[in-house]
């Protein structure tokens, strides 16, 4: 059991995207049930307050991240600027998150201003991506949110988006 713990720890640590139980099960050729059990051991281990990192679940996968309590000292030491999105970017992201797949024109119609630059920047930061093309005239690109988006807003998956009333 100890060895499985170690190899799973290594695999999750070495990935910058959440690693799913299925993926681990496939690579390690070990049943999903056993992986699940080992993940639980790992989760418990890092919950201990002598650890500064922990295993966090995102969209059905696991990732090591630092505990929230250390955020400000990390920012201090690494000079990490607090990343905050502008109002325009947040609104554009909200539209994409709730309406995906959505085209640029559809976004612009809602916000009433051009969206090209904001889309470019959001793409550059990996928060949104082109997820295909719409089957209408001109075949416009459609956008969706990424895993990075989930991470940025601490959402487990898209179903955790706050509920909004659309009375239509």
């Amino acid at each position, binding site marked *: 059991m100890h060895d499985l713990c170690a190899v799973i720890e*290594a695999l999750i640590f*070495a*990935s*910058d995207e959440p690693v799913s139980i299925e993926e681990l099960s496939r690579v390690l050729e070990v049943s999903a049930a056993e992986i699940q059990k080992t993940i639980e051991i790992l989760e418990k281990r890092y919950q201990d307050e002598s650890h500064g990192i922990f295993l*966090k679940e995102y969209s059905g996968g696991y*990732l*090591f*991240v*630092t505990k*929230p309590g*250390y*955020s400000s000292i*990390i920012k201090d030491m*690494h000079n*990490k*600027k*607090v*990343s*905050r*999105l*502008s*109002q*325009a*970017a*947040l*609104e*554009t*992201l*909200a*539209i994409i*998150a*709730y309406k995906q797949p959505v085209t640029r024109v559809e976004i612009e*119609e*809602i*916000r*009433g*201003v*051009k969206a090209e*630059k*904001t889309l*470019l*920047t*959001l793409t*550059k*930061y990996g928060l949104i991506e082109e997820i295909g093309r719409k089957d209408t005239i001109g075949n416009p690109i459609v956008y969706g949110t990424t895993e*990075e988006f989930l*991470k*940025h*807003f*601490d*959402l487990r998956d898209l179903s955790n*988006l*706050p509920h*909004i*009333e*659309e009375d239509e």
Partner: protein
Amino acid sequence: MSYELQLDGFQGPLEVLYQLVKKNKIEISEISLASITEQYLEYIESLSVINLDLASEFMIIAAELMEIKIRTLLPKEEKKGEEEIEDEHSLVKRLKEYEIFKKASMILQEYEEKGTMFHQRALDIGDFIGEEIEVNLDLDLIDLKKAFMDALKSYRAMKTVKDQKEEKEWKKLRIEDIRIEDRIDYILDKLKDAPAGLSFAELIMNRENRLEIIVTFLAILELARLSRIRIKQDKVFSKIFID
């Protein structure tokens, strides 16, 4: 998570309208929008520097607001059965939808606060496996070309921020060219020389710029509001006469 974001973007006319709704603590409906039309127009007039693209956006919404205002001022005719069942004005609908996403974005902002508490370092697979790495990249030349274009695009975007200052000067001149006050003076001037009245078409003759036409129209509405002129139209879509 841990990276810098510097995003901006002008908050357009819908945002201005939304702020006015909030400020006046009113509901989003035709009647309440009509009540803030003046404030919206005042806001536009207070803008000394504005990008031309945005200016026309602002003007289009101004025109829609005027339309709503006129609709609410006109006496309601109680007839015409089916036709009378009108939908909400599209501006009301848009603003309602805008409000929904505005609220969603405010919730996301709270989530962002939480999300940025977790840190992860930029991982490089080379850190974990030996020196030689075979890559099996799912990429083709199109991706490569696109990446280059993307890099150049954002480079240019950064550079244009620098150039924008000079551009603003130019835009300032442009917008001052077509201020509502000037158009009002112009219309009054023209009317002095035309005791029989003028048609709207005559006033916008030789004015191909859409913005100028809209401003002229707004100027006429303003003059009518101040009772300085009278507007006549025989039937819908026929010529508009002013005297």
